[in-house]
C-alpha cells in the first residue's frame, strides 16, 4: 500500500510538470507551484475544524483521549499552515514580484498561523495534564470564530482588495488537465495527512497508556513541570562496616 502511495506521489509530481501552461500567469512554468499550494490551506482549514470538534468533545466529556486527537489535528493543521505560507511566498515572488505583498489573504493566513502558535505556547506553559487539556481545548474553541473570520469573511469584505481570486473554484475557472492535476494532488496530500494524523494519535494514546502505567507503579513521569527548577544531586551513602 505504501509503495502504491509513493508511486502515486511520484506520478502526480511528474504530471504537475507536464500539464500545459496557463497563459494568464506572468511566468506560467513557475506558476505550477500553485498545484501544491492550493491543497495546503484547504487541509489546514479542515484540521482546524477537526481540532475544534475534538476540543468540543473534550469540554463536553472530559475524556483526555480527545485532547490527543485535538492536539494531533492542530499539529498537522499547523504544518499545513506553514506549507501554505512557504509555497504562497514563493508564488508571490515568482508571479507578483515580491516575497511579501501585504496581500489581505497572506496577512490573514499569517494571523491564523499566529493563533496556532499561541495554542502551542499555551500547551507548553501548563504542566498539569488535565489543565493543559481543558485550557487548550477552550482556547481552540475560542479561536474558531476569529479563524473563520480570517479565512472566509476578511478576504471577501468589500473594502479589501486582494491579488487572490475568490472565484477560481466556484465559477469553474480551474479546468481541463489543470483541474485534474489539482484534484489528484489534493487527494494524495489528503491521504498523506490522514496517515500522519493516525500515526500521531496512535503515538499520543500509547504515551497516555505508558504514563498511566508509570503512575500505577510509582515510576517517575516524563511530563515534568517546566517551571520546576529543582535539581537532583547525587548523595554519598556511607558504607556500613
Amino acid at each position: 500500500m505504501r509503495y502504491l502511495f509513493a508511486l502515486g506521489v511520484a506520478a502526480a509530481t511528474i504530471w504537475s510538470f507536464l500539464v500545459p501552461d496557463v497563459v494568464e500567469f506572468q511566468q506560467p512554468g513557475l506558476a505550477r507551484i500553485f498545484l501544491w499550494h492550493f491543497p495546503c490551506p484547504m487541509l489546514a482549514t479542515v484540521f482546524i475544524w477537526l481540532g475544534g470538534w475534538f476540543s468540543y468533545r473534550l469540554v463536553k466529556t472530559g475524556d483526555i483521549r480527545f485532547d490527543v486527537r485535538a492536539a494531533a489535528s492542530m499539529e498537522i493543521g499547523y504544518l499545513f499552515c506553514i506549507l501554505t505560507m512557504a509555497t504562497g511566498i514563493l508564488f508571490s515572488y515568482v508571479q507578483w514580484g515580491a516575497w511579501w505583498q501585504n496581500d489581505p489573504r497572506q496577512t490573514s493566513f499569517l494571523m491564523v498561523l499566529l493563533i496556532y502558535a499561541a495554542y502551542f505556547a499555551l500547551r507548553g506553559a501548563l504542566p498539569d495534564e488535565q489543565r493543559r487539556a481543558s485550557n487548550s481545548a477552550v482556547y481552540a474553541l475560542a479561536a474558531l470564530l476569529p479563524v473563520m473570520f480570517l479565512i472566509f469573511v476578511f478576504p471577501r469584505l468589500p473594502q479589501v482588495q486582494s491579488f487572490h481570486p475568490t472565484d477560481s473554484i466556484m465559477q469553474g475557472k480551474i479546468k481541463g488537465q489543470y483541474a485534474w492535476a489539482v484534484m489528484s494532488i489534493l487527494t494524495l496530500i489528503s491521504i498523506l495527512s490522514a496517515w500522519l494524523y493516525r500515526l500521531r494519535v496512535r503515538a499520543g494514546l500509547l504515551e497516555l497508556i505508558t504514563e498511566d502505567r508509570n503512575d500505577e507503579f510509582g515510576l517517575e513521569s516524563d511530563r515534568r513541570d517546566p517551571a520546576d527548577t529543582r535539581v537532583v544531586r547525587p548523595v554519598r551513602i556511607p558504607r556500613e562496616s
Partner: protein
Amino acid sequence: MNRRIKAVLRKEFRSEMRTKNGLATTTLFGVFTVITISMATFDLKISPQLASGLLSVSLLFAAIVALPRTMIVEEEQGTGDLLRLVAKPEDVFWGKALYNLFFMLVTGIILTVLFLGFTGTPLAKPWLYGVCLLGSCCAFTGAVTLCGALVAQASNRTALVGVLSVPLLLPLTFLAVSGLRVAFDMKGGFNVTNGVIAGFGLVCYGFASLAGGPYLFSAVWKR
C-alpha cells in the same frame, strides 16, 4: 442580573477601590500612549486611516494590560479556590466580564479624549465612533477575560496572556480600523456603509464572544 453576579461585580469594584492599582496603571498607560503618539507625529497631519489605526492599537494594548488582572489576581492571592466554592463559574465570568467591560469603556473614553485633544483630530461621525468603541470594548472584554482565565495557572502568565490575546483580537482591530476611519473622515473619502457594517460587525462579534464566554469559562474554572 442575578444576586451572585452582583456580588462578584461588587467584590471587583471594592478590591479595585481599595488599591486603585488597575485604574492608575491603565490611566497612566493611556496618557503615555497618547503622548508618545503625539510626539511621534508632531509635524504630521494625521489622516483618518492613521488616526483609526493608532487609536485601535492603543485600545488593543490597553485591553491586554488591564483586563486579565481580574483573573490572574485570584490565583496570585490564593482567593480563586474560595471563589470556586461559593460561586458558579457562569456568575464569576459575568461578574468579572461586566467589571472588565466597565473598565474598558472608561479606558476607551479616557483614551479618546486624550487622543483627540493631543493630536487635534476632528470627529466627523460621533455616533459611529460610539458604536465602534462599544463593539470593540465588548469584544476585547470577552476575549481577554477568557484568556486571563486560561493563563491564570500557567508558569509565565504575564507574557503568555499577550501571546494568546493578540491573535484573537487582530481581526477585531481590522474591523475597528474600518469603522473608526469613517468616523474620523471629514471629507467623505470612505464609504459610510462599509464603516457602518464594520461597526455593527464589531458589536455582533462582541456579543458573540460575551455569549460564548460563560460556557467556555466553566470548562476552565472548575477543573
